[in-house]
């Protein structure tokens, strides 16, 4: 189970690596749902390429598709993004105080080194 979840999260992060897919998500953020043809318009890439990006986003669970007559609409699906954010937040909580301590530790070492250098006879 846990492994399945990990793979899911990896797919989310892999999907987010690509700038076109991030642009698609940013666009979808502004709309409740949007027809694929409308979504594809501002991109300087062909519809089949957009469709491939949408497949990656869908496999990562980041969007859902629904058919209305002859148009296919897509919309954002927030849960996997939240999970990705949780991962980032967890490590931010881990590293942020650690780096503060690192900074004060290194600062103390620097002062020691300078004091030592000051004591050294020229």
């Amino acid at each position, binding site marked *: 189970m*846990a*492994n399945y979840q*990990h793979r899911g*999260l*990896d797919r989310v*992060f*892999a999907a*987010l*690596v690509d*700038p076109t897919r*991030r642009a698609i*998500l*940013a666009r979808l*953020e502004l709309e*409740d749902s949007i027809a694929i043809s409308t979504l594809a318009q501002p991109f300087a890439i062909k519809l089949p390429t957009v469709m491939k990006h949408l497949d990656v986003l869908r496999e990562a669970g980041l969007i859902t598709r629904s058919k209305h007559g002859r148009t296919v609409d897509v*919309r*954002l699906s*927030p849960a996997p*993004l*939240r999970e*990705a*954010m949780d*991962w*980032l937040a967890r*490590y*931010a*909580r*881990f*590293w*942020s*105080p*650690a*780096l*503060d*301590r*690192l*900074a004060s*530790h*290194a*600062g103390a*070492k*620097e002062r020691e*080194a300078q004091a030592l250098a000051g004591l050294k006879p020229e």
Partner: protein
Amino acid sequence: MTSLTLVRRIAARPSIVFEALTTAEGIAAWWGPDELPVLSAELDARVGGAYRVRFQTLDGQEHEAFGEYLEVDPPRRVAMSWNYAFGGEPAEAGRTSRIEFDVRPIDGGAELTLTHTRLADEASRASHARGWTGSLAKLVGRLGALTAPAQAPTDPQ
């Protein structure tokens, strides 16, 4: 982006910062999310060398991080693979991510940049994708507002 990036400006020269990152004594002084002491730190800071750090958190749990040095370029850069086991429950069992520390000299000390990347094999692509963390946070922050109106009765189904 797929990575966490944190920056600190430190009143110490890069070589001192690098030493804090790559010696057991240095790591023991700061590693971990809270003030509890590091229980043990073993490392061999050469490319291909291993590290293992055990520490305790305020909730009483023991944790262990371990991995391998992927890049060691004193005093500028060190990259490690990262595996993290929370006490008892391996929250990320089988998952390897990647951490990178970059140190650059600035007036009066060094600037340290930490990048923690979820996808170990995405790290080479990480540089152009930095900054996404903030956008992602913004996006997610607004999703709450976005999902609620989706239930609005404007769309007769």
